[in-house]
Structure formats: C-alpha cells, structure tokens
C-alpha cells in the first residue's frame, strides 16, 4: 500500500475529505462573520450563539411543532435573522460611530446571555437531532465510509457561500455597504438608506450562522455550548482570510479545515491551536490577511 507522509494513502484521502467537511462549517460561519465585520465593522462575538440558536430552533421546531429538517433549514435562519434584526435595531445601531471595541463587547455580552439562558433551560449535555431520512446512511468510497449527510453539508455550504459572495461582490449592494462602514453619514447623504441596509446585513449574517447551526444539528449534539467552542476558531479563520474579505473567509475556511484535519493525524493535541499558529504567521507576513486589502 502506498503511503503519504507515512500514513496509508486511503487514510490520507479520508482525512482530507473530513477536513473539507469541517472546513464547510468554518467557511459558512466565517462567511457570516466576515459579512458582518466587513460591512458593519462589528466583530460579532454573538455569532457562535447565533449558530447555536439555529440548531436549537431546528430542534425546538421539531419537538414542539413537528416541523422537520427541510422546512427548518429555511425557518430557523429566518427566526434567528429576525432576532438579529431586533438586536441590531435596538442595540447595535447605537454603536456604529464608536470604536469597534464596543460592538465586540456588546455582542460578547449577548453571547453570554444567550448561552447562559439556554444552558439554564436545556443543560449542557446536548440534545439529539437526527438527519432527515433522505440523507441517512453512508456510501463506501473505497478509502472511507462517507456519511451521505456530510456530503450534503459540503454541497450546501458551497452553494450558500458562492451565492452570498456573488450578492455582495457583484452587486451595488456590496459597494454601498463597504462605503457605509467608512463613512455612513456621507453614504446616507448620497441618498442610500444606510440604517436599513445595515439592519438587513446583520440579519443576513446571523441567518448564515443559523443555517450552519441547522446543518450542524444532526452531526453534533445540539448543545448550548456548541457555538462558544467554535467561535474563537472562526475568528481566526476570518483574520487569516483578511478581515472583511468575503472570498478570503470562504477559501480560508475550507483551507484551514483541511489543515486542521491533517494536524489531527500528525499532532492531534495541537489540532485546536494549529489555526492560531497559522494566524500568527500569516499576520506577521501579511498583516492584512491572505485576501485582505492593505490599508
């Protein structure tokens, strides 16, 4: 049997594939984060909580209303998006003219509240959620057993990432939003309804997190802590990609997923910090991140 870096080739491919699957979550989450940061200059610490909310929304919809996976995939993000809109209107919008630090602190506080409340209600152990029947089972790829659901996750995340990217980079919307982060008053003076734009953007970013949450629900336990475990890593992904760069977030998300997967083979203990090591190196060589624009 041939080997790659000392491990059997099939096992290696398996690990690559798994890295890609995890990368899908990183990409989706960091995409939402990058959209919010890039356009609102808010470092959305509540992103992990919104991801968790997405998963819980799906879980509760199923438990209390009997609404299944597929409708939840639309409904849960909608619900989370609406809560995010409320948050933006009532709180975040008052902070835009201040140091970005305050946005970070506010969302940090929100994350603590959301997690605390869910932990209080549901405990920390996590709730079960099953994949839809159409996507259960696995296919044998020869080198590994690939759960069909995970394949779906990769496909779904690719589609969502791509369409969001197109929406923001290839339409006027993106230019408005980028300009508004620099000088919202002036853009508004040009006749753009900036406040509404920002509200919708935050809603969109949070909804993206919620989609990731619903996608994750059948794979991981639906737990109040699922987001806080992930959020710091996702931050690192966004920073490596270049804060504010949508494409950067997506590409880096997949890339770091794969790199982390490989680390799990060669030095598993370090798998939780490999991303930070890469982040430190990248920032030292390319301060603006891989895809970021130098200011």
């Amino acid at each position, binding site marked *: 049997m041939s080997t790659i870096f000392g491990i*059997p080739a*099939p*096992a290696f491919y*398996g*690990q690559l594939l*798994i*890295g890609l*699957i*995890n990368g899908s979550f990183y990409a989706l989450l960091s995409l939402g984060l990058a959209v919010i940061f890039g356009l609102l200059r808010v470092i959305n610490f509540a992103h992990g909580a919104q991801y968790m909310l997405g998963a819980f929304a799906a879980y509760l919809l199923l438990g209390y209303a009997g609404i299944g996976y597929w409708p939840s995939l639309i409904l849960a993000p909608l619900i989370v998006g609406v809560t995010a809109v409320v948050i933006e209107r009532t709180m975040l919008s008052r902070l835009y003219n201040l140091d970005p630090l305050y946005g970070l602190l506010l969302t940090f506080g929100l994350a603590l509240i959301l997690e*605390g409340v869910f*932990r*209080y209600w549901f*405990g*920390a*152990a*996590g*709730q*079960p959620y*099953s994949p839809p029947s159409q996507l259960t089972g*696995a296919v044998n790829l020869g080198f*590994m*057993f690939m*759960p069909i*659901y*995970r394949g779906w996750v990769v496909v779904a995340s690719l589609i969502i990432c791509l369409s969001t990217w197109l929406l923001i980079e290839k339409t006027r919307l993106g230019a408005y939003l980028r300009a508004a982060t620099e000088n919202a008053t002036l853009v508004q003076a040009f006749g753009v309804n900036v406040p509404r734009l920002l509200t919708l953007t935050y809603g969109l970013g949070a909804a993206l997190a919620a989609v990731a949450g619903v996608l994750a629900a059948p*794979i*991981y*336990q639906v*737990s109040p*802590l*699922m987001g806080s*475990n*992930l959020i710091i890593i996702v931050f690192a992904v966004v920073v490596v990609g270049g804060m504010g760069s949508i494409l950067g977030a997506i590409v880096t998300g997949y890339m770091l997923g794969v790199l982390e*997967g490989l680390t*799990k*083979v060669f030095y*598993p*203990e370090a*798998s*939780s*910090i490999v991303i930070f090591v890469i982040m430190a190196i990248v920032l030292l060589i390319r301060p603006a991140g891989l895809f970021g624009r130098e200011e």
Partner: protein
Amino acid sequence: QQASDNVVKIGILNDQSGVYADFGGKSSVEAARMAVQDFGGKVLGVPVEIVNADHQNKPDVASSVARQWYDTEKVDAIMELTTSSVALAVQGLSKEKKKITMTTGAATTDLTGKQCSPYGFHWAYDTHALAVGTGGALVENGGNKWFFLTADYAFGYSLENETSKFVKSKGGQVLGSVRHPLSANDFSSFLLQAQSSGANVIGMANAGLDTANAIKQAAEFGVTQGGTRLAALLFTLAEVKGLGLKAAQGLTLTEGWYWDQSDENRAFAKKFMEKTGRMPNMIHTGTYSAVTQYLKAVQKAGTDATEPVAKLLHEMPVEDVFAKNGKVLPNGRMVYDMYLFQVKKPEESKSEWDMYKQLSKVPGDTAYLKAAESGCQLTQ
C-alpha cells in the same frame, strides 16, 4: 455532645452550568437535601443545612469557594466535587484546614493515592473501577484490540493508562491512541484513525459532551456496523439520555448504580424523579449516600469535630440504597460493587428511562485498588 456553631453544614460543590451539569449538578443538591430529610433534618439536636455552589469546573473557583465556606460560613464538610482537578484542589485545601471531603463526582485515583488525605473520602467510582469494569469485561468478550480516544488532560491520561494496563494484563493489545483537545467537537478524523488501526474496541477516555459527540459520529461513520465496539469509559445515565438510544445503542459502560436494579432502587429513583424530573445516576445516589453516611458518623461520634467523625467514617460499614457491604479503606476509598451495562436498542426499551441491560457485576475488591497499592502515604 455538641455540634459546633449549633448547626451542621454540608457544602455541595459541583458543576452546575458546564459540561458536567447533568452528570451531577443541581440534581445532586436535591439528592443531598433528600438525604438530610430522610435523616430527620437534624443531628445531635441541631439542624442540618445544605449549601451549594457552582465551581464552573475551575479548581481556583472551587478552592476560593471552599476556603470561604470554611472561613466564614462554618461549613463542616464538602461533597461531590466534580472533575479531578477540582477534587484534588479542594481535598488538598481541606486537608490543610482539617475538614472532611467526600468526593463522588471526580474520577482520579490520586485522591486516595499520591494525594490522599486523612479527611478525604472517595465515595463513588474512580478511574481504576471504570478501567476494570469496562476494560476487563470487554477483553473477556473478545474485544482485545483497543484504540483510545483520550481527552488531552490528566483525567484522560489516567483513564487511558489504567485501562491499557488492564487490557494488556488480560492479554489484549493497545494499537494506538489519539489525544484530542478538550471540547474537540469533531471526532470523525480520530474515528477514522481508530478504524484504520484495525482495532475492534474504541475506548473513549474522555467525558461529557466529548464522549457524546464521539459516539454520535461513530454511528454516523458506520464504525459500529463494521463490528467495532465502543466503550465509554466515563458515561452515565444522564448522558445516555441526552444522546438518545438511537445513537447510543450497544455502548458498553460501567456504572456503580442503576435505578432498575432492585425495588429499593426503584423506590429511591421514583422519589428523586418527583423532585428533579430525572432519574438519578451513580453520582446523584452517591452524593445521597455520602451525606447520609456523614450524618450517621456525626450522630455516632456525638460531635461534628473532624477527627472523630473521620475516624468513624473509616470504620463504619456502608449499607444503604447506594452501596451494599460497602467498606472504607484506610486511604479513604469506599469500596463497593460496580456493574457493567450495555445500552439497550430503542426497540428493547420499555419506558423513557429504561436504557441499560446489566452485563455483569464487578465485585468491589476487584474494581478498586488495594490500599497498599494505591501509593497513599497514610497506609504505610
């Protein structure tokens, strides 16, 4: 015959909001209150009070709370102490302060080994018992090639080490292990490594959410379909409930108590259920037992002073809903029988909480280390 400060206070210090919140948590506080109630609410003519705090799994938080309890709130004994680092820290502090601790929530054998204390008691399971129970039984059943998923900290190592030792002593092989960071979330990569190692048992030397996620993902990747068995080294009824039978079915685990083992157990469980809305696991019942035994000792000693009570706790046999024929070794280890369970298939389960099949019983003397082997200075 006098209790200090006209009150006997027992502190329940455990995780009430983190990954072990279901494992013991608030329900354990309820169990302690039940014990006081069942004892009559008073000892030596003074009231018994239960105080509790959430240590958030941080040894420093736990130490400060414990110190404050001793210094300002006249707490006489602290119980439960979930997670090893917390238990070691609080037991160490209590030794210095000459106070009794009765650990039910932590696993490390160091509590009655290298770091034992004359006032420290280890009341429920420990890593050795889990290793013997799960490790030994599986090897006997043909699960002789092991691969470990180990949480990258002291508790994980000791669980892995002790289980490996046991597996090897029974003629099994350890093919490898991976050490994953705490809260690793995704275990598929590790599971794949385990699979490609050719092992027929994957031993999960971790706890809480980590174990739950690993089991869930193992099912997803068809690990168990390939004939590989999963052994959760530390997993209780509460977590099985959270995971659901569908994902957990077939899992082998060791616990020291199960509600459906006897009428006495069922009666206790029913009462507990009414108070908390859930069935007790070995931690909850263990805490109940610890409080009860402590009060018995105080009663018998006629004082709540540490030295005489600790002496009696070492001498008195343990006989209650939790332990039959239990005895306490000189190093503080309470020895009682453990059981190996298998999680039922969904179709085998007759009620919501009907989840275990008992595979075998592990007698206390095999499950726990002899005092002389424990490395505890007190016994030399």
